[in-house]
């Protein structure tokens, strides 16, 4: 589908056409889901975030002024959903593990990379995911985050440096003394 066709779809959705909603979901749900998944690192939470984003987008689509800005506008909503999610889960995540408490997490090969990414501030994570993982242009990423392109470049540079510093220094729990007793 080319850009003009997607604009037509947005205009039809703005006019209340349900089939246009459905086609817009087909068009954007995978990209939106990936964006949410890279940020929150959990399949079901990413689905909740993308679902809420699409529902809010269609509830507010009449407020969208320029149909050609639908994609950055949609990702702006997703960004807000993610920031709300981070705020509501922050207390739980920073609480230390108490005596006799067990935290269980499905372990993945790239847990370390995920944890380093998660340790950055939310907007740095969003910059890295949009530009370095999803390949968005600086202009589009800046629009989603709501900052100028220059500010985006500077934030991205900081985020990359911070991420790489941690990535290159990181060491998991050292187990050199491992031995069979």
């Amino acid at each position, binding site marked *: 589908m080319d850009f003009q066709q997607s604009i037509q779809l947005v205009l039809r959705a703005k006019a209340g056409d*349900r089939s246009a*909603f*459905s086609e817009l*979901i*087909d068009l954007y*749900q*995978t990209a939106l*889901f990936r964006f949410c*998944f*890279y940020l929150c690192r*959990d*399949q*079901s939470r*990413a*689905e909740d975030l*993308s*679902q809420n984003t*699409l*529902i809010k987008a*269609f509830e507010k689509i009449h407020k969208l002024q320029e149909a050609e800005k639908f994609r950055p506008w949609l990702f702006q909503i997703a960004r807000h959903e993610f920031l709300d999610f981070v705020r509501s889960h922050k207390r*739980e995540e920073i609480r*230390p*593990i*108490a*005596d*006799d*408490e*067990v*935290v*269980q*997490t*499905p*372990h*993945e*090969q*790239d*847990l370390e*990379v*995920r944890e380093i*990414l998660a340790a950055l501030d939310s907007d740095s994570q969003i910059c*890295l995911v949009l530009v*370095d*993982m999803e390949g968005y242009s600086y202009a589009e990423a800046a629009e989603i985050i709501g900052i100028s392109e220059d500010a985006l470049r500077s934030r991205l*540079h900081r985020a*990359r*440096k911070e*991420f*790489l510093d941690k*990535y290159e220094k990181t*060491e*998991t*729990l*050292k*187990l*050199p*003394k*491992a*031995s*069979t*007793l």
Partner: protein
Amino acid sequence: MNFNDSQDLAKRTQGALASLKSASLTPSPFMKTRILAHFEEQSQKIKSRSKFWFWSFSTSGGVFSLALIAWIYLISSVTLQGVEGEELLLRYGYQTLAPQIASVEVVLPEGVNFHSRRHPHVRDLKVLKISGERVRKLGYLPVVVRSDTPGKKNIHFIFRDEGGKVLKEKHLRIQFRHKGSSASLKPMRLPT
């Protein structure tokens, strides 16, 4: 910063993040159905609000009973859970005891292995001894385990002081499910 530095930084970051990317990452096929159903439900709600109140009052007793049964079931079924063949990261907390701890031994049952990308040799161990300042500082012990078979498995932790005296022992029971038997696991905190 010059252009080359910036390009290099971008390349290295993209290289590191590439391991997280997955081409097969797609939402559930039902997500779209749920979204469309949400809007359908919204319009239906407006039409049938009066009917809804009648039925909700008449059935509230039954709904309450069902909710109570579901709640009791959920409370009683909370346990550590894993999936066979998949790595599970466990972090066991021991804040209060931490200053006295010199070493921790983790003992695995048959069919369960340790997993570490950086220390692959731990896979062959049945007992792992971890010691040093880090054990004290962390206040929790992270271990990644993997079971090749489903069922209940018991992981044994032994905390020792400088003199080798046992300060505490802990058995964690994990129920490893058959692969593909239900939805993916979620991170969770559990008192033990």
